[in-house]
């Protein structure tokens, strides 16, 4: 398979791509194509794809929840990849798959946070956000506080280093490897490795401090 750097893809390159995707995935595929072209429509397409994937990941998590027993935990990597197979299948290129997984990783981040926040609120006995408790149960109570702390720390990091936050989303929430993350974000694998090392050291320090009462 030939892997083109993202910025060398021109709108014309789309014409060379096969169009044999199943109908239910055509909208997602179209958004991915727009995203990959990197033109003016890119941000709108990213936003639309994000909303679509946020809903999809919620639905997939609910689906799994219905069949779960006991101590199962939410496997975010599996969900993100399942969403890809469902919505795109085997038709996508390496680059478009990476784009999809990066956006899905961000959506997964917020899906997980929604559950964790709900669960943590329940644990505190305080006002709960609007989400059914059985969905919040996708995050076990003893992990909810850590996930909330992780999200809060990641949001602080994002404010000063957005790229590092993207890398954390891909590596942690989506389970992308270094090369996939590099492809998705249009940066070098070396930059991914550097951002990841620095970000996780810093995030770990924040979690350690925020959860002082609860040993990590």
């Amino acid at each position: 398979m030939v892997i083109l750097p993202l910025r060398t893809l021109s709108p014309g390159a789309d014409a060379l791509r096969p169009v044999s995707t199943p109908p239910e995935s055509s909208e997602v595929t179209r958004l991915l194509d727009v995203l990959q072209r990197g033109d003016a429509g890119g941000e709108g397409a990213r936003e639309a794809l994000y909303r679509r994937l946020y809903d999809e990941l919620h639905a997939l998590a609910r689906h799994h929840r219905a069949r779960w027993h006991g101590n199962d935990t939410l496997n975010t990597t599996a969900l993100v990849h399942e969403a890809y197979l469902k919505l795109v299948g085997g038709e996508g290129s390496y680059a478009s798959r990476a784009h999809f997984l990066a956006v899905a990783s961000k959506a997964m981040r917020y899906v997980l946070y929604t559950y964790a926040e709900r669960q943590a609120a329940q644990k505190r006995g305080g006002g709960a956000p609007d989400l059914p408790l059985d969905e919040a149960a996708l995050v076990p109570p003893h992990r909810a506080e850590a996930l909330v702390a992780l999200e809060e720390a990641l949001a602080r990091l994002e404010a000063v280093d957005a790229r590092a936050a993207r890398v954390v989303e891909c590596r942690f929430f989506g389970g992308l490897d270094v090369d996939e993350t590099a492809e998705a974000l249009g940066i070098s694998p070396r930059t991914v490795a550097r951002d990841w090392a620095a970000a996780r050291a810093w995030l770990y320090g924040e979690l350690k401090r925020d959860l002082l009462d609860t040993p990590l």
Partner: protein
Amino acid sequence: MSLDYWSRAKPLFEAARQRPRAAREAFLAAACDGDAALRAEVERLLALSAEADGFFDTLGQERCRLRVGL
């Protein structure tokens, strides 16, 4: 910890990490040029890094199985 030093600490953290442990102190002394707070932040990140590797590697094997309270 404040992120005030992030943009300067991050490249120094990376550069120090590439050096043998024994060479890090001299490197940081020169690179931080008397900025004690900056140096402290880089050293803090280096110390956290070893622990963080194990922590996030576990997460890597079992996504989101944060081992809190276990």
